[in-house]
């Protein structure tokens, strides 16, 4: 444990250590660490941005969805209305047709009845004439009494 030139030796040796460390050892290690720091910061930034983008996209999608829903609802509504209109129209047409058919039938019936009545009337006139002939036992001159007979037939 003597004090000697080891002291000077250590000063020199340590100075060389520090110089080597400062020149060759410290910079690459710190550079790597700083670069990683930057990378991590960038990564966090990117993930932040991505999550923001995602949120925006989700909002957009939700908006689109509601829009589509509203459109669909409107379309359904429209279709319903249209269907109702078609049904109404069809109903009205059917009713009109029915009415037309009924009225046609009624006019037919009227015609038949009138025809029948006319026929009946002529037959009655003939019968009446025949009956009166029989009753009177005399020939009734149809031409003579036609006026009378017509009057009778009209009364029937």
């Amino acid at each position, binding site marked *: 444990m003597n004090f000697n*030139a080891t*002291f000077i030796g250590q000063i020199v040796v*340590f100075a060389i250590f520090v110089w080597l460390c400062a020149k060759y050892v410290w910079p690459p*290690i710190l550079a790597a*660490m700083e670069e990683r720091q930057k990378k991590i910061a960038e990564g966090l930034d990117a993930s932040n941005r991505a999550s923001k983008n995602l949120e925006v996209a989700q909002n957009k999608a939700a908006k689109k969805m509601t829009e589509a829903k509203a459109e669909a609802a409107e379309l359904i509504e429209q279709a319903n209305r249209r269907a109702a209109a078609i049904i109404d129209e069809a109903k009205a047409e059917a009713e009109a047709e029915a009415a037309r058919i009924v009225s046609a039938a009624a006019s037919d019936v009227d015609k038949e009845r009138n025809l029948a009545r006319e026929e009946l009337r002529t037959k009655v006139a003939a019968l009446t004439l025949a009956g009166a002939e029989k009753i009177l036992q005399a020939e009734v001159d149809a031409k003579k009494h036609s006026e009378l007979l017509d009057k009778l037939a009209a009364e029937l």
Partner: protein
Amino acid sequence: MASSEGGYHNSAEYIQHHLTNLTYGKIEEGVTLCDGSIAEHAHWGFAHCASEAAAMGFNAIHVDSMLWSIGLGAIFLLFFWRVGKKATSGVPSGAQNLVETLVEFVDGNVRDIFHGRNPLIAPLALTVFCWVLLSNLMDILPVDLVPYLLQLAGVHFQKIVPSTDPNITLGTAVFVFILMIYYSIKVKGWGFLKELSFTPFNHWAFIPFNLFMELVGLFAKPFSLGLRLFGNLYAAEIIFILIALMFGGGFVMAILGGVLQLSWAAFHILVIPLQAFIFMVLTIVYLSQAHEDH
């Protein structure tokens, strides 16, 4: 491996032997050599005993301290350099994690304490911390292991813990001191002299007193820095040596010695990084003071 086995005559010799460095130096003419003869002419060579080493004075170098110091520094530098060369900014693994943890730890301390802008401070702090830590860690190796093996190889003295050599610790501290003075003058210029002259009493009449106080304070810094480390490690080493002596004292003493060895080593494990940390922090603080203009 104590007294009887190691070939020592008594405990004092064992301790003395373990506290003697492998010294290479100049033996002057007329010095009493280990075998009792007188050196006929001055010559350079390894000291053969403690008294020869002491007689060499300043013209000697502790080869063991120096080589261990250089070796440990080289281990630190090579390891960090290799990791730094392959360092990736991607996911780090293994050695890079260790290195980055240390670098981040040191860098954090420098950022906390040192507010100037000097790219040398952080690598300096890292070198100080790692070198002192490795050097202190050598204390954990069994005191006889390396010296005994080297003795078998013919090397008679070996101290493997550089930080138990005051030359080494003071050398490191004085290197820090040189940087302190250099940066004080570089940053403050004449302000450095003014600072020394006008604190603590800001009056011209107190200049001699101030100078005396400040210079004492200034020169106390490297001494306290170097001697604190030396004192802690030297004391610990002596205790390890004393415990090692117990192994030669019979079965019961050997068991007791083993227990003591284990517990002292466990305690010392705390001292080792603590001293390295203190040395590093004080280095940063001193250099920070050198950069601060008042």
